């Protein structure tokens, strides 16, 4: 799904990511790497490979749009257990020429600093990219550049014609735009489709409501 935001051409991907073709930048939010390992540490036997599937999808998406940079809008990791995983260093090795950035989110605070092998440039509160201000939580935007952020894991409920669906979505309000959680292992906050332009992820497609 291709649309325009703040005069910038924006591609909304069903992989739950935003691609900015002019800048070659891929934007995702809320990866929660290492969530399964945190559960396992607490003795909850969730299967292995849960986080691996998310990172594999991220890697494929970077390749598919030939991104030159990746921007993670916070909650790259779930907890410190993420440091025990090697998925992110593998991502680094597989895409040596891609610049990796993360705007730190609330979960990222569990980790004082990311391992060098991950190769991420860390931004404490926000980062500027083209006409956008990249943040984790939906704040700012009143004055200054338009905010793109994650944190909420937005979902839209569609109801009608005797059917009902709850789907992850992108939502672009007047001054703030929300990205869906990249990880599939999460529920989210339900947003009202009337609060902005809302695009849902329906299988392999992104559809505007």
């Amino acid at each position, binding site marked *: 799904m291709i649309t325009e935001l703040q005069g910038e051409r924006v591609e909304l991907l069903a992989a739950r990511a935003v691609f900015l073709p002019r800048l070659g930048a891929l934007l995702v939010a809320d990866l929660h790497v290492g969530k399964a390992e945190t559960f396992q540490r607490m003795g909850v*036997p969730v*299967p*292995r490979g849960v986080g691996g599937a998310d990172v594999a999808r991220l890697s494929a998406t970077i390749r598919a749009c030939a991104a030159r940079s990746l921007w993670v809008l916070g909650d790259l990791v779930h907890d410190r257990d993420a440091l025990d995983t090697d998925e992110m260093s593998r991502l680094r090795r597989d895409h040596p020429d891609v610049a990796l950035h993360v705007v730190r989110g609330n979960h990222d605070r569990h980790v004082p600093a990311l391992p060098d092998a991950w190769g991420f440039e860390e931004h404490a509160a926000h980062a500027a990219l083209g006409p956008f201000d990249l943040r984790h939580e939906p704040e700012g935007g009143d004055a200054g550049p338009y905010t793109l952020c994650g944190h909420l894991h937005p979902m839209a409920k*569609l109801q009608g*014609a*005797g*059917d009902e*669906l709850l789907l992850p979505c992108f939502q672009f309000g007047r001054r703030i735009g929300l990205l869906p959680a990249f990880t599939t292992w999460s529920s989210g906050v339900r947003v009202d489709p009337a609060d902005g332009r809302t695009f849902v992820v329906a*299988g392999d497609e992104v*559809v505007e409501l």
Partner: protein
Amino acid sequence: MTDAAQHLERLREWMRAQGWCPQPHQEETWAARAAGRDGLVCVPTGTGKTYAAYFGALAAALAEGDGARAGLRVLWVTPLRAMARDIEAALLRPVEELGLPVSVASRIGDTSSYRKRKLRERMPTVLLTTPESLSILLSYEDAAEKFALLQTVVVDEWHELVGSKRGSQTELALARMRGFAPGVRTWALSATLGNVRELAVAAAGVASAPPALIQSGGRADVVIRSLLGDEDAALPWFGFLGGAMFDAVVEALDPRVSTLLFTNTRNQAERWYRALLERRPEWFEHLALHHGSIDADERARIEAGLNSGRVTLVVCTSSLDLGVDFAPVERVLQIGSARGVSQLLQRAGRSGHRPGARSEVWMVPTHAMQLMEIAALRRAVADGAVEDRQPVTLPLDVLAQHLVTCAVGGGFDPDALYREVRATAAFASLERATFDRVLAFVEAGGEALSAYPRFHKVTRAAGRVVVDDQAACRAHRMAIGTITQDSSMRVRYVNGGTLGQIEERFVSRVRPGERFVFAGRVLELVSIRDMDVRVRAARGRTDHVPKWVGGRLPLSDSLAVATAALFSEVRRAVEAGGALAEFGDEVGRASPLLLRQAQLSKLPGEQVLAEVTETREGSHLFLFPFGGQLANEGLAALIAARLGAADEVTFALSANDYGLELMAAGSFDFEARLRDPELWSTARLDDDAIEAVNGAELGRRQFREIARVAGLVQEGFGRFRKGARQLQTSAGLLYDVFAEHEPDHLLLTQARREVLQRHFDRDRLAVVLERIQREGLEVVRTAQPSPLAFPLLLDRVEARISTESELRRVERIKARWLEQVGA
């Protein structure tokens, strides 16, 4: 005379001194216990089954002489904490009055930790406990020693436990105690059910000699009446609150006549209590509300008030079905469906249950079709059509919990424990390979944690499976109670005083300053701290009343069959031009509705009735096999899966006790597809059922409970609890994670199997399908939903089966939105 016989004679004399004559069933029970048998006593409430089981056990303990005090001799297991106090009083009474050298104590969830510690140091002769507390006792390291002298276990209200996982938990605990004290005898007490023999074996275990079955002769003498109100008081087509009959009920109540008003849910009880209080504030002193979430002290006060005559009108739920021996009341009202013959007999038995006295119950219908159910109920009672209650088999989540309990409680040898577990009826068919998989799951978390030795809860030492981490032991003990409860929070006043328990899910939707009704009071939420909900009393009214999960029970088989049969007869009478009045008051009263049904559609007859209709929402199929809620839900999912296999289509599913609905979004030609005999085929039934379970997400729903029991989701780590935020996830999401990454996981398989058992009882489903194959459907195209179809439209469950792409569904919903905007 043996020692035990002498002690029994003394107890018998004590009974006579109270003016009670030992009943034949009591003598029989005492004799069987003296002969060293296990058994089951099945007699009406209030006829003395407590002492039937108790005196045999007590006599055996007293025969030990001074040894009676040496340790635990009699264990009394009751399913309800609410009943513990009354039972303890009953157990204590002869002991105190005769000055017997035994001690009696209870250990339940409410017991203070100081008392619990004292009890651990020194066990009483007679201990009263719940299944959960029993499991906790078994989880102490010296369990084997503590239970070594045990002679008798009494399981009270066994019928309440047996159809649930708490029943399986109890079976496993019983087997464990037989291992610790090989001579121990088990006596179960039960209300009347169809399959008492099976229940007796479940209590005694399959490896013991056949248990004695003690039943009182004669059929319960119950009179069923209906409260119908004014001739012109019209009942709605749908509803389960019963507002239409409110005036008639107020009219019928009299604070001078002691009365129980049974409702089917706690929510309904709260609403009736508030409504009565608003209409008749002068009844305040006499009116009370009693249900399982209300604080135990408050319930005890109500029960005492009922005994003393201060409280005369009690709105209650199944919390008063059970065997607390308060004085019989003069009148019993049942608001809404009776659900089953057995439950009705039990509730009716609360009135006039002196030997020889007749029990009477007034039925209060909440909607018009229920009139038919009441008429059918009267026949089913007369025919003695008491339901069976099926014990749960092979609940691996409960087994997983039990294995940890045994590992914590002194450890076990896997071979010996496997034999022990197999001696229960629940696990009689357990294969060694499955046992080993469950053991591997608790030991190493299955595949997932096998690479992380530091996560392992359970370890091996010299061939025995043990837990040596004290924190893990404590965590497990805390988790044991979770078979019964959803995560609940304590409701208390800001200035102290506890009101009871409320579900976290409800609280999470109330904001500070908002009002809600609980324990019959209007309250204002002040704050939520840890697991406490702080409230203060508020004025005025509010419709905000909590709903507790697991509120509504399905109609029993017997009652569903009897209702279907009555419809058939009524239809023949209508077609023959006969009068409906001859079927009794209820059917007479329902006749406008029945005639409307006949006019808009047909009355259900020999063939299964199918109605097909179109509304603005889409195309609807209504089918009325009268299979009961669970089987109808299963059938709906099965048909939807079969129809969806051929077409790309999305169905919304709905089911109640009488029938089911499939609604296709957009238009769908049900009539043509119903003629396809493949739709009703019993071939591939098992495969299609599994397909349906996955499609309708039934497995996902069932997984919630399983994940909790097996310790996968820790309910204590709720939204309001400090810390452990990183562990927040829902069972539903965990189900998805497992389904994707470890689809044959033990607990996932368990969830699917339970759904198949609950909703797709193969025999029942095959009976319906074969009936439709043999006799065909009676398909009627209706211009609008009929009275029978109407409730299915209004009370739709949130289940869907879709074989369409999400994209197509989104596009259709969007198109409908645009239409509406255009219009």
